């Protein structure tokens, strides 16, 4: 075994205080880097005593802030590309903390209206880490957030499963009322999207009562909105309008208001009041642009497009549908890509341009195939059907309605579409 020998403290101090030329002749200092560095520091130490900073005795905190350590780690994890996060966590298991889980949950919540795929990924990671940590409330929180992201991106069955798992964890941990209220609300949203509007209405009412009792005005607005959506699905449009207007009067959150305005517009359209519908769709679009949410903007424009189509302004509608579809492709909102393609096909049919139908369906099909969607997906089937019909010159409203039902077999996003 080779043992490194170094100069002791006394020797180094003596050298620093001695003949200035001696160190340059010392063979050990010339060859040993650690000793040379320490010697250099000792030699230059007196010069530091001229600096004001070394004499400043203002007390400063000495301990690193724990919350800053966690916060920076969270930022580091979020900054990694998605495919790098799990390998990084495997290499740094101490990153798996409740604080990191909460940061992922918060990041998912912030990302959902800007970039839904990112939100999904954050949520999924939060669930994985929370599950390992074994804290039931944290795990429930992560499952709920992930469930919402799944719902928002059209994965309704998985969303319901995730939300139900969250409910079970909360129920086993003492039934925190506010958390249960949020679960009720989320389940209402998902059930509505799955077509069980009565159950959705019931759950939304229950959630509204919980949040009224807790004086949580923001969530009361959400609950009213969900009740309204369910009422619309049950064709109770006047009730829906009253609920939405009450929600709008109480709403202070600009993001929620953007969604509310769109819901009001859709309701007016269902009531046949085109003028009011147009007014509120324009307001919804302006609100969406103000908050800078790409999905909201796309959906608001999509609704405007459908209104234009219903008024026979087919070329304008087609222009809107084409640009909206590009936005949905970018945001990987698969079902909406299919549905807007069907709308575009309807506009083309109305102007007698079946060649464009074939071309736009070909583009949509390529997107689905490249995105890895299987042939059994309703969206893919629906679009293929339209393309085939258009190519054979037999495209009709009947076929479009059938195709829409095929695409809608995975039920629709509540915000996105007409209440056919």
């Amino acid at each position, binding site marked *: 075994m080779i043992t490194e020998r170094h100069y002791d403290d006394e020797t180094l101090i003596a050298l620093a205080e001695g003949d200035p030329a001696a160190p340059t002749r010392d063979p050990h200092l010339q060859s040993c880097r650690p000793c040379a560095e320490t010697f250099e*520091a000792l030699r230059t130490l007196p010069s530091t*005593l*001229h600096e004001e*900073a070394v004499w400043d005795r203002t007390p400063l905190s000495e301990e690193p*802030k724990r919350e800053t*350590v966690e916060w*920076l780690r969270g930022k580091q994890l979020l900054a990694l*590309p998605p495919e790098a996060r799990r*390998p990084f966590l495997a290499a740094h298991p101490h990153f798996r903390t409740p604080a990191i889980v909460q940061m992922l949950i918060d990041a998912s919540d912030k990302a959902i209206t800007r970039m839904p795929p990112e939100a999904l990924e954050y949520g999924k990671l939060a669930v994985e880490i929370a599950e390992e940590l074994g804290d039931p409330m944290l795990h429930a929180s992560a499952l709920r957030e992930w469930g919402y992201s799944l719902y928002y991106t059209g994965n309704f069955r998985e969303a319901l499963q995730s939300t139900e798992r969250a409910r079970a964890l909360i129920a086993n941990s003492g039934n925190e009322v506010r958390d249960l209220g949020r679960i009720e609300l989320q389940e209402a949203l998902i059930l509505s999207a799955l077509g069980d509007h009565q159950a959705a209405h019931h759950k939304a009412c229950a959630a509204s009562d919980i949040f009224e009792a807790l004086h949580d005005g923001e969530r009361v607005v959400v609950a009213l909105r969900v009740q309204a959506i369910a009422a619309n699905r049950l064709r109770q449009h006047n009730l829906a309008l009253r609920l939405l207007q009450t929600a709008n009067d109480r709403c202070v959150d600009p993001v929620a208001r953007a969604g509310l305005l769109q819901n009001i517009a859709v309701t007016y359209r269902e009531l046949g009041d085109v003028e009011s519908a147009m007014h509120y769709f324009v307001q919804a679009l302006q609100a969406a642009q103000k908050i800078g949410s790409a999905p909201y903007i796309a959906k608001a424009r999509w609704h405007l497009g459908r209104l234009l189509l219903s008024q026979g302004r087919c070329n304008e509608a087609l222009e809107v549908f084409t640009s909206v579809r590009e936005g949905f492709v970018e945001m990987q909102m698969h079902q909406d890509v299919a549905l807007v393609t069907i709308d575009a096909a309807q506009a083309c049919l109305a102007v007698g341009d079946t060649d464009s139908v074939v071309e736009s369906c070909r583009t949509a099909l390529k997107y689905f195939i490249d995105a890895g969607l299987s042939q059994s997906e309703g969206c893919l089937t629906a679009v293929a059907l339209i393309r085939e019909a258009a190519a054979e010159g037999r495209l009709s409203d009947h076929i479009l309605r059938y195709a829409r039902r095929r695409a809608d077999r995975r039920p629709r996003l509540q915000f996105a579409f007409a209440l056919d």
Partner: protein
Amino acid sequence: MNAAVLEQNTLEAAASEIETHVSEPLAPALPSEQEDVGLLYETYRSLLLFVAARKFRIPESEAENLIQEVFLSYLQVSVRIENVRGWLVAAVCNASRHFWRAQGRTESLPDDIGERCDPSSTAVADRLALEMTVHQSLGYLKPKCRETLHMHYFEGRSAADMAKEMNTTSRYAEKLIHNCLKNVRTIYMQINRVKR
């Protein structure tokens, strides 16, 4: 502010490291190779706080915010940083200058702001780390020793001048200065040994 921090992300290695690596292109940092930024914060916070709060006289709460910004900027650097300490020190120097420039719109800047911590000088981080350890060492000295060193090195008073004030001989004053310096060097070595 991040632009101000990042404007120096190509410099600040110690001179010897620059000579070693000057011909090597900067490799991209792989995510799996990234160091734990929390650990880096724990390791270097004291030094960075010393720079911001003592060298640049930024209030501690603001200095802490600057340090966090520096670490966020560190996370954004896409190339591998060989001398992390050097990079962080230079970044906090730039951030501190930027802070005072912004403050300068409403308050006057410290007179010597231009001379503080020029990040283009070599071995800045080593020097600042030395200063920080000396600062710590002075805290362990007896008050009389600390006062002796303060009078001689910081106030610039000669041994003869100090002897008059202490009502003693110049020789005694010189010996006192020498012993106090030796004490601080010994304490410095002990602190460094603990750190290693």
